[in-house]
């Protein structure tokens, strides 16, 4: 790729009068030697998987294997049917869709990692709900995925997209930044505004630890996806309104690296700190371990 930072990316867009999506698509094709059409088709397939996951999460059974989670997306969707959501309808819908996809993931269903499975709900939540709202064609959203991908590419190479390396700021935080920047471009904002949206969104995620109960990608991951979709929309709106990130996005990404490196191991996906180590988190973990032992025993002596 011709860019390592978001500033370089925005400069290329400005010089060549292209969107972030176009630059990412073309660079990907050049870098891998795969024709542009083929690269686009692959991404279009991924978008279909995302839409299927939203539907599955809203209508299917999403009880996870542990039994700890499932069905929350439906609760939010039902609530929206008979009450006025405090967030307002469109944001509540994005939240419900994000929860839906994350619940499909937790119940071992098929999803697209964006950038990871733990954070797989945020981009589909924002994209699919916005598509319905604004009546966009699929291809527009597929372009949006290239925008999101370009932003994630910069974060991944300059900081991290792994909870085990850099905490949840690296997973849910990155996804929020990616969704926010993509949303700006989808709404017709400039590449510079998209980069500001990334900076704004990431600032609000710095320091977020990775602390899944029993090490499962369920609690708190699923709700963080629902709330993350809302944050992405908010950051996109700020940037579209002309609000800038005074600390440039690339420098915020640098802080993500600094904070992630300083994070204790117990707050990096080991299931040993944070919410996982609360009295309730410990109790749930213990119950699951016992349940698993019982099952293993039963399997040996039927």
């Amino acid at each position: 790729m011709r860019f390592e930072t978001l500033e370089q990316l925005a400069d290329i867009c400005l010089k060549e009068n292209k969107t972030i999506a176009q630059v990412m698509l073309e660079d990907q094709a050049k870098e891998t030697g795969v024709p542009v059409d083929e690269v686009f088709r692959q991404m279009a397939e991924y978008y279909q998987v995302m839409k299927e996951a939203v539907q599955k999460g809203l209508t299917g059974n999403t009880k996870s294997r542990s039994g700890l989670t499932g069905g929350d997306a439906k609760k939010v969707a039902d609530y929206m049917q008979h009450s006025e959501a405090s967030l307002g309808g469109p944001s509540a819908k994005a939240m419900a869709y994000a929860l839906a996809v994350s619940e499909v993931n937790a119940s071992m269903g098929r999803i697209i990692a964006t950038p990871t499975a733990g954070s797989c709900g945020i981009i589909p939540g924002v994209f699919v709900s916005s598509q319905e709202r604004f009546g966009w064609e699929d291809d527009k959203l597929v372009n949006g995925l290239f925008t999101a991908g370009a932003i994630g590419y910069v974060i991944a190479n300059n900081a991290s997209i792994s909870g085990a390396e850099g905490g949840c700021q690296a997973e849910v935080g990155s996804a929020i930044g990616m969704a926010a920047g993509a949303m700006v471009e989808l709404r017709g904002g400039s590449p510079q505004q998209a980069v500001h949206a990334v900076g704004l969104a990431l600032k609000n995620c710095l320091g977020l630890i990775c602390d899944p109960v029993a090490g499962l990608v369920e609690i708190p991951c699923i709700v963080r996806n629902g709330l993350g979709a809302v944050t992405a929309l908010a950051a996109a709106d700020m940037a579209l309104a002309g609000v800038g990130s005074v600390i440039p996005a690339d420098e915020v990404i640098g802080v993500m690296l600094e904070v992630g490196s300083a994070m204790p191991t117990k707050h990096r996906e080991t299931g040993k700190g944070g919410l996982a180590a609360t009295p309730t988190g410990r109790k749930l973990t213990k119950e699951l371990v016992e349940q698993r032992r019982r099952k293993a025993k039963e399997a040996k002596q039927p």
Partner: protein
Amino acid sequence: MLCRILTFVQFPDVNIYTGAWKSLRFKNVFSIIGPSMVGPSSSHTAGAVRIGRVARQLLGCQPEKAQMTLFGSFAETYWGHGTDLALTAGLLNFDTDDERIPEADIEAEKVGMVMEWIQGKGNGPHPNSVKIMLTAGERKAEIVAASIGGGTIAVYSLNGFDVQITGEYPTIAVTHSDSQGVLANMTSLLSCEGINIGYMDVDRKGRSEAAMTVFELDTAPTGSLIEEMLRLPHILEVTMIDLTQRS
């Protein structure tokens, strides 16, 4: 010629999280958006499937026995993320979105693969790492690898040689004796076939002893190219590792 070849090998920045070469990290938009996978965790499930597949392909056939040593977060949380099922699925050559992953243990039993799980001491080379030792009859294979986020992996060693690969590209791993001209012969063979080398790494046990060279290639080599390479002097073994092909 040798000097020219060495210019392929880059010495980029070291990532401060992992100590891994920065060039090994993310190169592709589909390692950010993607993979398409069965949940619940891209690093602990999808990445683990891909690591398992690298090990299986290095062995070159279905393993009969697999000894798996898990480090760091892999060791702490493997059960919750189904990392054991995912690594097992990889050893069966399954893809990351294969819907049989949740039942990989049953599938392993069906083909008679015996799994042994060990909790490693310390963190290994990365918070999510695993050492895999495989056997099938006389054949043996060993890898040390880590899942570095979003389903992307970094392989740190193959059969005891410190060579690094990513699994993002069709890769060939060549075991050869450490003799003059071997590298030049291999690279000129590849260039004659019009195959571009994206990355190359070499490690040897000692002077004039066994060495391994890995090539990450832009396009998949044909079977006949591998046969031709095997006919070059001092070449002991050529193995193809390609996760870009659907299983």
